[in-house]
């Protein structure tokens, strides 16, 4: 029996540590621990609720805009504010931009090198690579000369001894299955995606005033439209947005999706690995008729139990019996003790660290072992993320979602059950990017039509003045971050924040066991995963990366006594 530890703690302070027990070449048990404490709730108490977005936006560097969105919604929900149509559209454009950029970066820069062998790409034949690339799509950069130049540059880079981004891979691992030429295409697009991504985020700068950490506003959006005015968002800026959107759609359709499908075709065995939990939760997002009407969201709201796609349950963020957080294995204490679950409106953030000081060899997994609380929906562990969003939409018969999912399943010649896997999770992320790339065009066209017809309103200021607020009120803002269901809960008393709680996607997926000993999504997904080489646990990385965890990790291998025998750093 071997215990493998994936942990950034000894390298940098990070979010996530995984300990996995391997027996007979397969994982038989796993533990996921959040090793960085959060306490944003404490900073927010007593502040003006209208300012909360600016603080929560800095909780995470990747999901920055969606935290701000969840925050303004939470406050609007509490006070009873609905935003003008243009504000809904601008928020949707910001949301779509974030998802497209984040998903592409995840695929190429955080996940692709789990499947693409960079060193193998060095011996690819550029002519053959060009031929294959041309069968994938009509993307222009497919000449033999292009691939040959890239390969030369890559060789010089590797020969310099500074592998840099490529230093931490398990190159030559038997689990890599792609032909050399497909590996070279993967590396080429890794670099092209890096150039591409810097453009699309300019949409955030235009509508949010700045980037990173763009501006949000309770009651609307902080941008003014005037098609003729130099200092407003005018025709020229909107034309630039149109170009950015077109380029983004082009990259998704001609590079990301063809690469995803090509790579998936070589790794169909991963459609039977890493499924994990059988319950899925999505809050949904991208309203089309206001936040109060989730049935009209592009991503619908709902929960699926036992992988039964014929039944999607309603989800209510305000029902105190639905979403509860437990701390049986988390370094917190509740007034009511370790066994109770608290709805976020009643949430408590009292730290109770009982673990070892880092760096430590092994967590005490019988007791408390994580800084993440353990959220449950009706006491069920739930997976959140792109797969959950697509399954909820699929289960509800959403025609657009069914179309892209069924098309991909047919192309790969796999049944719908293939979705419940590591590969399914990675594919779902790409497929929803396709949908979002369509939807961002719809939202932008609708915004342009509104502006052309003279509808310029972006803010509802009716309840901006705190004297219009009730003495006490509470709200919830349900949203989706790229990596899954995100919600903020607020209690407002005497115009100030009385309590503020966040339940973030990684809390659902990466949390420790609950009070009944049930595993959460990461832990469950690792059970049964094969590990070919214990010194190079590429398979663990594949499954954990398929959830899109926020940070790079370092991997350490331990023997059964917890003795450190090997260390490899992985991104």
């Amino acid at each position, binding site marked *: 029996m071997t215990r493998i530890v994936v942990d*950034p703690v000894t*390298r*940098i*302070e*990070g*979010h996530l540590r995984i300990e996995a027990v391997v027996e007979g070449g397969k994982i038989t048990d796993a533990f996921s621990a959040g090793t*960085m*404490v*959060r*306490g*944003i709730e*404490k*900073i927010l108490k007593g502040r003006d609720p209208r300012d909360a977005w600016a*603080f929560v936006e*800095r*909780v*995470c*560097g*990747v999901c*920055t805009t969606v935290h701000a969105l969840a925050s303004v919604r939470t406050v609007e929900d509490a006070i009873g504010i609905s935003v003008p149509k243009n504000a809904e559209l601008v928020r949707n454009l910001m949301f779509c931009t974030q998802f497209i*950029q984040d998903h592409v*970066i995840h695929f190429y*820069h*955080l996940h692709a090198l789990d499947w693409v062998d960079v060193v193998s790409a060095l011996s690819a034949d550029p002519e053959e690579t060009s031929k294959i690339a041309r069968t994938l799509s009509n993307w222009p*950069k497919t000449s033999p000369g292009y691939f040959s*130049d*890239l390969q030369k*540059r*890559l060789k010089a*880079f590797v020969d310099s001894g*500074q592998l*840099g*981004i490529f*230093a931490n891979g398990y190159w030559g691992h038997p689990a890599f299955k792609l032909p050399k030429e497909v590996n070279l295409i993967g590396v*080429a697009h*890794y*670099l*092209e995606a*890096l*150039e591409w*991504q*810097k*453009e699309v*985020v*300019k949409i*955030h*700068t*235009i509508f949010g005033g*700045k*980037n*990173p*950490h763009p501006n949000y506003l309770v009651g609307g959006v902080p941008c003014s439209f005037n098609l003729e005015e130099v200092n407003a968002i005018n025709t020229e800026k909107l034309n630039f947005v149109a170009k950015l959107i077109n380029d983004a759609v082009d990259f998704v359709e001609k590079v990301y999706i063809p690469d995803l499908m090509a790579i998936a075709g070589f790794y169909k065995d991963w459609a039977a690995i890493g499924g994990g939990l059988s319950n899925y939760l999505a809050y949904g997002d991208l309203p089309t008729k206001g936040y109060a009407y989730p049935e009209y969201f592009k991503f619908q709201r709902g929960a699926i139990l036992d992988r039964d796609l014929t039944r999607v349950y309603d989800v209510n963020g305000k029902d105190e019996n639905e979403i509860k957080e437990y701390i049986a294995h988390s370094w917190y204490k509740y007034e009511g003790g370790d066994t109770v679950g608290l709805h976020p409106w009643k949430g408590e953030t009292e730290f109770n660290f009982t673990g070892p000081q880092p760096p430590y060899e092994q967590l005490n997994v019988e007791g408390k072992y994580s800084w993440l609380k353990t959220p449950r929906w009706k006491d069920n562990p739930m997976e959140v993320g792109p797969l959950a969003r697509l399954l909820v939409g699929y289960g509800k018969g959403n025609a657009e979602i069914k179309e892209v999912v069924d098309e991909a399943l047919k192309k790969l010649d796999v049944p719908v059950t293939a979705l419940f896997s590591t590969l399914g999770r990675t594919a779902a992320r790409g497929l929803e990017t396709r949908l979002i790339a369509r939807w961002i065009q719809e939202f932008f066209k609708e915004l342009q039509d509104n502006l052309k017809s003279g509808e310029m309103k972006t803010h509802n200021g009716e309840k901006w003045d705190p004297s219009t607020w009730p003495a006490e009120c509470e709200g919830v803002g349900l949203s989706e971050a790229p990596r899954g269901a995100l919600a903020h809960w607020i209690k407002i008393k005497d115009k100030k924040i009385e309590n503020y709680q966040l339940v973030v996607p990684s809390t659902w997926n990466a949390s420790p066991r609950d009070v009944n000993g049930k595993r959460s999504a990461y832990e469950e997904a690792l059970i049964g995963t094969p590990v070919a080489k214990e010194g190079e646990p590429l398979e663990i990385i594949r499954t954990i990366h398929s959830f899109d965890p926020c*940070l*790079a990790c370092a991997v350490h291998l331990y023997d059964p006594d917890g003795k450190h025998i090997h260390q490899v750093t992985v*991104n």
Partner: protein
Amino acid sequence: MRKTKTSIDSPRILILGIGNVLMGDEGVGVHVVNALDEAAFPPNVECLDGGVGSFLLLEPMQSVDKVILIDATIDGQEPGSVRRLTPKFSTDYPNTLTAHDIGLKDLLDAFYLMGTAPEVVLYAVSISGLQDMVMDLSPVLRPVVSKVAKMVTAEAAIPPVTVRSSPICA
């Protein structure tokens, strides 16, 4: 995209403070940038509060010739110590440079591969360890802000030494 005052001939310089202002001393880089008066710099110099922007910072970094990066590091030095470093590859960075930028510095390597890397000068400010969630700097770090602000102001007057080659993937 952030502004358009840069003239075409002068090398573009970005003073970029990064860190999490919700985590006490960890946010020192942002405090330094906020202490600078951008209007007092020549038009080719830009100041940016990078916050915890990670990959979102690639765009501003890719569009300039020289980046003056200010960040906190937990390197065992006396809190408040400041080191000027000129890292080239990700492995040249202090390996305890804090969590928010790990993806960023790793991706800088890709710029070297593509020939699009700006010159990076790092002002690493030592802090004692990750802090509780507070927004104030500790008493030891508070006086360091104006000191580093002066250092990076002087640094911004030094033009970049490297000439960037053209990207292969642009």
